[in-house]
């Protein structure tokens, strides 16, 4: 079963608007990562935030992490039609020997030109 849950499941906005996606997880983490997946393609890494960080920026992306609430958010500012994709959060466990990422169910973002 998957550890993370994204909210909302689907989001539709006009080009130029901001898009916010949320992710909740269940266990202690080493870091949290956000990935993007275009239809029929593999996942592309967007940003990684460590458990001791609270906010991180990369271009039009802003990620926050609240370990006390076990939640993260991804904000895409000034959205473009090309941002249309599914976005997944993925957590790397804090447990020794944990070897994989746990992915959420994803948010499908549609940006209308």
């Amino acid at each position, binding site marked *: 079963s*998957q550890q*993370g849950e994204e909210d909302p499941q689907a989001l539709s906005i006009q080009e130029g608007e901001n898009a916010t996606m949320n992710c909740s997880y269940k266990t202690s983490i*080493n*870091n949290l*990562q956000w*990935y993007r997946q275009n239809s*029929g*393609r*593999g*996942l*592309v*890494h967007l940003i*990684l935030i460590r458990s001791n960080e609270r906010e991180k920026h990369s271009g039009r992306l802003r990620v926050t992490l609240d370990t006390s609430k076990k939640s993260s958010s991804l904000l895409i500012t000034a959205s473009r039609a090309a941002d249309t994709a599914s976005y*997944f959060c*993925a957590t*790397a*466990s804090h447990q020794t020997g*944990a*070897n*994989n*990422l*746990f*992915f*959420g*169910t*994803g948010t499908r973002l549609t940006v209308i030109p």
Partner: protein
Amino acid sequence: GAGVSQSPRYKVAKRGQDVALRCDPISGHVSLFWYQQALGQGPEFLTYFQNEAQLDKSGLPSDRFFAERPEGSVSTLKIQRTQQEDSAVYLCASSHSSGGAHEQFFGPGTRLTVL
């Protein structure tokens, strides 16, 4: 060279057939991961290799699933006696560091359809 490549991109199998899915990771990447992604879901972990050693196969759903990476580069995921519930996209990812806590680079996936 380029990114992670996978072949075939699409595979249709009759129930009961064996299939083999190939992954070419980024050259020099130590870690290699296989994930299964059902329609409308996020990827779910299957197995992990560090070089040629399979260190974690806890996500393999049954003993019909087998993976290998004999020379620490190319990997093959084999599914024996395929069932309809095996239909999914199988994603391969590699990472330059050991373990799963680092950025992973994904291939385009193999879409398996079992009839």
